[in-house]
């Protein structure tokens, strides 16, 4: 088979459905990465237009442009759109598009999950935009502090759109994070050890792990606030044992890491693009990886620095002030490594490099003002002023938008296969750079003069008029610059000439293919022995196109790739991908029905939607089942590997493990909330504790002990060729017993809308009951698979996955039961 025949055959196997319909059934990372990026930039335009409206409003004193009600919606939606609908999805889109190419594999770990995540994002984002068009958009600020956003003070549907819409969108972020984590760890080219990974993959891995542990506290906060608004459970009402500070803790437990979740992928772009622009290699690869890890962890210890003015004791403030200053060190390590890279290379001022220089200048200023606000006395003065708004824009625009523009121009020839010839980009960069600094330097100044953030207008005698006008003029220059970049990109896509492959002479693997990238990505998979593979093997692209790598011969119309050992990159298993399907869009639509039902308070459709999701999830996984044992497959170069369905640690197991990591963070945040209310909130102890029951506790704990033991035994029986059916049924009995105890906790919880304690018991019981229902569903699924001949000693991958869920449910169930029953049992 020659290269052209191979290309045609692989394209036939991997291509999406033709035409418009293909958008809805594609599961290919090339399509979905582009769809994510285009949608994210659409939201960027929306957020940008909202920013212009803000600047119009503030350009003159006593502005009558928008009344306070509309203005509140405008600034809330600007922050919300930029943070949740632009920044994070842009990272997801870039990672989804680039990672398989950089890692030397054909797709991400779970292609249908990628599609599901995209549609959840598109539908959730659309909900918020529709709300805005109808004038009922969220209006409580992008961090939605109660009591302002409680039902008492914000009785409309506006806040519900935020709480429910953002939670819907966050499903997408969690899905992408699981996808990226498993892909980076397991889906790499043979012999690509962790030490040989491209630097962008390290950043993507760290960011994905941060999303898995950073987003759940916000999801929890949104659930609790929506429960308070919809059903009167008083988690944030001080007079009923709640505390509005709990929201601030949960929000900023997410919100501060979020800043680094946005910055780190951009830093990954810089670490990738800068060495190419400087004709050299990255200086201090190990230092940069270490700094990124340190930054990720330290960012989780900073959340209270957003709460310096809430009356926390000085020692508490000092902990977070110290952590906030420390975070500058790993950031500085990266900056110096990049400066060193420029120093040792020969920088060439191509357009991506201009944006990188824009990043350096802007982000360093943002970092320095960050150190200023980390100092408590200064923060007390600057808190909630325009100075903070200016600081965060220096960090986020400098630390994300400039690097992303650098990335857009760097990878544009890869996306399109074309060569830039319009020179609008250079002028656009100049306008963006000047416009940005005029806008936000002025905003620092007016903030120091005392202008509070989010005010709808001000009086001439405040003395802020000239500065605000300068800021508004700057913002319009910035907007013109960004519009020119978008026009430049569109002109490039539509009209530019075909370009050569690898126009930058880069050394990373994504350039070892024809551009635009084919649906199958690599005709055969490379063996990687160097961190800069194209520098070691300049003809690698040709050799891979000839099928000289692994899996070079298409067969059985399979979409196939390899998974490897995490550390060494040694090939471990042969993986078959699913084909195009509309299941992801259908499932996200039904998921959307669930959220929409909650939003519109059509509660009778909620169980319908949950049943629909369960049915589709069942169908989703059932389709992966195999009815015949799988022999080891030859993958080329004399290597034969087992199928992923025949190993204990399949990709599904890894995906489950990381999903449960996010779930455990959610549960941990719930326990933190309980402990916080108990120890800090006024109005405790509650009027009545939960009445303990030795019987229910005993039944629940026995069930929790029985279920994992039984499923473990079933796994062993299956592996030895026996019949696991009876022990799986035994595990189901254990789950039912645990479910009974958790449901009883919900049923007997003290009246939940009279005190936050009762509300917490209800949520804890609900969490346990929901998880026993999921474990029960999975146990039922396993039983059905056994009965239908989908499992054998060879096809064993489903057992450890169900086992993980059962163990998790049991462990959390025991904690829930002890937390509920023990206080009443202890005299």
């Amino acid at each position: 088979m020659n290269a052209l025949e191979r290309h045609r055959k692989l394209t036939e196997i991997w291509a999406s459905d033709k035409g418009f319909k293909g958008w809805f059934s594609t599961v290919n990372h090339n399509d979905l990465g582009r769809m994510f990026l285009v949608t994210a930039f659409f939201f960027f335009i929306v957020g940008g237009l909202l920013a212009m409206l803000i600047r119009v409003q503030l350009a003159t004193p006593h502005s009558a442009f928008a009344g306070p009600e509309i203005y509140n919606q405008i600034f809330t939606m600007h922050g919300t759109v930029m943070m949740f609908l632009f920044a994070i999805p842009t990272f997801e889109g870039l990672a989804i598009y680039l990672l398989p190419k950089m890692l030397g594999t054909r797709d991400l770990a779970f292609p249908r999950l990628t599609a599901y995540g995209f549609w959840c994002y598109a539908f959730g984002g659309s909900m918020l935009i529709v709300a805005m068009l109808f004038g009922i958009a969220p209006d409580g600020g992008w961090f939605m502090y109660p009591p302002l956003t409680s039902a008492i003070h914000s009785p409309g549907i506006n806040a519900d759109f935020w709480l429910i819409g953002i939670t819907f969108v966050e499903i997408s972020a969690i899905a992408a994070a699981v996808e990226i984590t498993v892909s980076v760890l397991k889906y790499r080219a043979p012999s690509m050890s962790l030490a040989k990974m491209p630097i962008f993959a390290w950043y993507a891995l760290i960011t994905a792990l941060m999303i898995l542990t950073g987003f759940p506290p916000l999801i929890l906060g949104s659930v609790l606030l929506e429960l308070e608004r919809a059903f009167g459970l008083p988690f944030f009402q001080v007079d009923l044992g709640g505390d509005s500070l709990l929201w601030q803790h949960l929000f900023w437990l997410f919100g501060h890491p979020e800043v680094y979740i946005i910055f780190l992928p951009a830093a990954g772009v810089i670490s990738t693009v800068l060495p190419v622009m400087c004709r050299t290699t990255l200086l201090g690869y190990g230092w940069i990886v270490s700094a990124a890890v340190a930054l990720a962890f330290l960012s989780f210890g900073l959340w209270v620095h957003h709460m310096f003015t809430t009356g926390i004791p000085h020692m508490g403030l000092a902990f977070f002030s110290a952590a906030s200053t420390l975070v500058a060190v790993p950031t500085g390590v990266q900056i110096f490594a990049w400066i060193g890279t420029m120093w040792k290379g020969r920088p060439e001022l191509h357009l991506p490099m201009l944006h990188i220089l824009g990043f350096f200048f802007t982000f360093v200023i943002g970092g320095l003002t960050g150190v200023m606000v980390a100092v408590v006395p200064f923060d007390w003065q600057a808190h909630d002023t325009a100075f903070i708004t200016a600081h965060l824009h220096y960090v986020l625009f400098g630390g994300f938008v400039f690097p992303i523009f650098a990335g857009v121009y760097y990878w544009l020839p890869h996306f399109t296969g074309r060569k830039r010839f319009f020179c609008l980009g250079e002028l656009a960069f100049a306008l963006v750079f000047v416009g940005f600094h005029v806008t936000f330097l002025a905003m620092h100044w007016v903030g120091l003069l005392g202008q509070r953030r989010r005010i709808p207008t001000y009086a001439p005698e405040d003395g802020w008029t000239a500065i605000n006008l300068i800021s508004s003029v700057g913002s319009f220059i910035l907007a013109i610059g960004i519009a020119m970049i978008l026009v430049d990109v569109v002109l490039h896509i539509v009209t530019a000439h075909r370009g050569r492959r690898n126009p930058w002479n880069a050394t990373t693997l994504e350039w070892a293919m024809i551009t635009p990238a084919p649906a199958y990505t690599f005709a055969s998979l490379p063996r990687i022995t160097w961190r800069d593979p194209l520098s070691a093997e300049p003809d690698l692209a040709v050799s891979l196109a000839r099928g000289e790598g692994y899996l070079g011969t298409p067969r059985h119309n399979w979409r196939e790739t390899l998974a490897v050992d995490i550390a060494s990159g040694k090939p471990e298993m042969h993986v078959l991908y699913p084909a195009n399907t509309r299941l992801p869009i259908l499932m996200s639509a039904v998921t959307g029905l669930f959220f929409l039902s909650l939003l519109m308070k059509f509660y009778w459709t909620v169980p319908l939607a949950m049943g629909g999701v369960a049915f589709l999830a069942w169908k989703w996984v059932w389709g992966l089942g195999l009815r015949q044992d799988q022999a080891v497959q030859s993958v080329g170069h004399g290597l034969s590997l087992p199928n992923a369905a025949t190993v204990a640690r399949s990709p599904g197991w890894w995906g489950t493990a990381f999903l449960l990591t996010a779930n455990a963070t959610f549960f941990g945040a719930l326990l933190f909330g309980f402990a916080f209310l108990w120890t800090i909130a006024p109005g405790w102890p509650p009027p009545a504790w939960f009445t303990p029951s030795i019987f229910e506790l005993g039944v629940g704990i026995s069930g929790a002990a029985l279920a994992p033991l039984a499923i473990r035994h079933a796994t062993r029986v299956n592996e030895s060729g026996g019949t696991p059916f009876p022990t799986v049924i035994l595990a189901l009995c254990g789950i039912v017993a645990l479910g009974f105890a958790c449901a009883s906790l919900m049923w007997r919880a003290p009246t939940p809308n009279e005190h936050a304690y009762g509300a917490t018991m209800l949520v804890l019981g609900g969490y346990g009951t929901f998880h026993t229902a999921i474990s029960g569903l999975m146990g039922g699924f396993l039983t059905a698979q056994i009965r239908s001949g989908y499992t054998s000693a060879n096809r064993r991958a489903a057992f450890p996955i169900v086992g993980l869920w059962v163990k998790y449910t049991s462990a959390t169930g025991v904690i829930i039961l002890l937390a509920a029953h023990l206080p009443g049992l202890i005299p």
Partner: protein
Amino acid sequence: MTEVLRILIAPLVWLASFSAIYGLHGLLCQNALAAVAGFPAERAVLMAAYGVAIALQIILLWILHHPRFAAPSGLLRFVSRASGWTGLIASVWTLFPVVALPTCF
């Protein structure tokens, strides 16, 4: 996965001890303890916790430097040790207010 755990363990322990001591501080300030030999018990408890946090980091750092437990790959060995130092420095610096500031003011 062991390789990844080697990198994550020290900062994870820092994060746990940092959060735990912050929580402990809140608890101690809500429920005043009796002084022990004229020394405020809250401060003694927090200083002990600070000591334990630093000791844990020193032990982890020693483990990460020990040939028996160190990562086999050069880069991962470097990154895991750098993370170990990050954990230790972060513990010393971010929890230093325990010894420098009044406890419940």
